[in-house]
């Protein structure tokens, strides 16, 4: 996988002094960082460092008690999941959050729900716009299926899939929304080497092919250093490092807090 030049552009997401706590327990303390367009931005840190909480703040599942979020120039106190999705932020979850009762295809199709405009009455008679939409979006979804090489499981209920494939389907669902920013919460957790390689390839392909900005949380340092442009390091809800992989690698605080311990 040769590193190729990416078109890292302007800052599109800026988080300023975000603090979040649950019933007195501080999850995030005064965190600021930004994400540039088209870059791969990694968030790393030991377990409980607040990485997932950070993503949940970005797409509005959690509401920070303090701080502001600036997305595409718009300053907000907090997001809500629907608005985040509507403004082009998609994500995957640390623990697979697929719709277990549905097939792979339907799962990915839900990713396009936001783009479907047909009224339920039109859908009930399966006519006109509703039918057309279904077919058009199916074609789109098939491209994603092809892209992520999951053709063979298209009609399989997701519950029957092995873990690695479920992760891939989740990525597909997120991609189906054609997001401009993709939040990946440990996309490679629990995978074997081969699956990790595949996932890395997909993440980079997404980034290159669609120009999608990617914010990812990952434990595997090798992966993080290989594929990310810039890395934010969190520890106990605080930011302790920020910069290119090389910079972070040589950051003393980071080494002490994180890289020092065996991972």
């Amino acid at each position, binding site marked *: 996988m040769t590193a190729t030049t990416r078109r890292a552009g302007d800052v599109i997401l800026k988080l300023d002094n975000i603090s979040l706590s649950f019933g007195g327990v501080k999850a995030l303390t005064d965190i600021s960082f930004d994400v540039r367009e088209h870059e791969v931005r990694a968030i790393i840190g030991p377990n409980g460092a607040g990485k997932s909480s950070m993503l949940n703040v970005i*797409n509005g599942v959690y509401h920070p008690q303090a701080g502001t979020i600036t997305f595409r120039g718009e300053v907000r106190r907090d997001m809500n999941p*629907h608005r985040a999705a509507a403004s082009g932020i998609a994500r995957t979850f640390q623990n697979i959050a697929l719709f277990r009762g549905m097939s792979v295809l339907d799962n990915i199709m839900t990713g396009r729900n936001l783009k479907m405009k047909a009224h339920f009455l039109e*859908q009930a008679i399966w006519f006109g716009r509703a039918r057309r939409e279904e077919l058009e979006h*199916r074609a789109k979804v098939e491209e994603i299926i092809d892209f992520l090489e999951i053709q063979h499981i298209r009609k399989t209920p997701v519950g029957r899939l092995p873990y690695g494939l479920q992760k891939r389907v989740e990525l597909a669902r997120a991609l189906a929304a054609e997001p401009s920013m993709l939040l990946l919460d440990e996309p490679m957790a629990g995978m074997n080497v081969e699956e990790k390689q595949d996932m890395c390839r997909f993440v980079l392909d997404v980034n290159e092919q669609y120009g999608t900005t990617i914010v990812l949380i990952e434990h595997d340092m090798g992966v993080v250093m290989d594929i990310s442009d810039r890395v934010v390091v969190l520890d106990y809800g605080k930011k302790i490092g920020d910069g290119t992989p090389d910079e972070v690698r040589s950051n003393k605080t980071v080494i002490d807090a994180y890289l020092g311990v065996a991972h």
Partner: protein
Amino acid sequence: MLYREAGQFKASYAEDQQIFAIRQDRIAVGALLVFAFVVVPLVANQYWLSAILTPLLIFALAAIGLNILTGYAGQLSLGTAAFMAVGAFAAYNFVLRVPGIPILVAFVLAGICAALVGILFGLPSLRIKGFYLAVATLAAQFFVVWALTKFGWFSNNSSSGVISAQKIEILGYTVDTPAGKYLFTLTIVAVLALAAKNLVRSSTGRAWMAVRDMDVAASVIGIRLMQTKLSAFAISSAYCGVAGALYAFAYLGTVEPEGFNLDMSFRVLFMVIIGGVGSILGSFLGAAFIVLLPIFLNTAAPLIEHGLGLQMPPGFMSNLELIVFGALIVFFLAVEPHGLARLWQIGKEKLRLWPFPH
């Protein structure tokens, strides 16, 4: 075994997304429809038409309604009968109070009334889930029956609270024979079942299932939880409402609020569970099972009694029937918790793979 699918390939997404993607299924469904629409009215006697098939279809419709809510959108409801009652009384009042209203319009309006009531009682679903919600829907059950009894307006001040449904008239033709009522019911149920199938295979249905399976993930991909849950309540209730209207107009002819009791809600829920949660087909299978089982047991009882030459104490057979009914339900849940639809599915898969086991 009967499925010969080799050579049935899909050259377009339209073909691939058909409800019945296998040619043999299409033929079977076509044959079934012809049978139901043509052969049954010609062959079946009045008892079968008016006492078995018509209620079966009506309950299937109610079960589809509940299945939309419980099976697809994952919101457990114990208030089905209440929504049916709303539909029945609404249709009655529309026909009564709006002179010359076409019956189908009255049915649609009845469905809308039920939908509105459904939305009202669906509001708690935004905050609460599972059994808490189920028990909350009981409030709808009790409240609606109470209100219909309490306010005489609903029953046109009938002294007994019982309403007599008006005649079904379509384009000047009065539907009053058992076969006519059966066909009327069948048509409505078939159309609505198709519409339900279409809904659940389009974005609305996927949104329901997404919310059912994992609501946080659903909201993160941009599905509005409130809209989705309430739409499920509305559409589900509308189906139940139309079923209720049919129950009054095409089946019993007269209904009283108490007829739409908790027992009926449970019966519909049984249909959904036994038929198969999240399956339109299952709604029909479940309705057939729950409608036919007691009748079968009841018919079989005296025959067994005579056959065995036993003199059972009175009430013995009735109680035994109840026990067998309950036991069969438990048995079914244990043997196939995903319902008859799953059994059907498994059977079909087996036939498709025949002679291979997998």
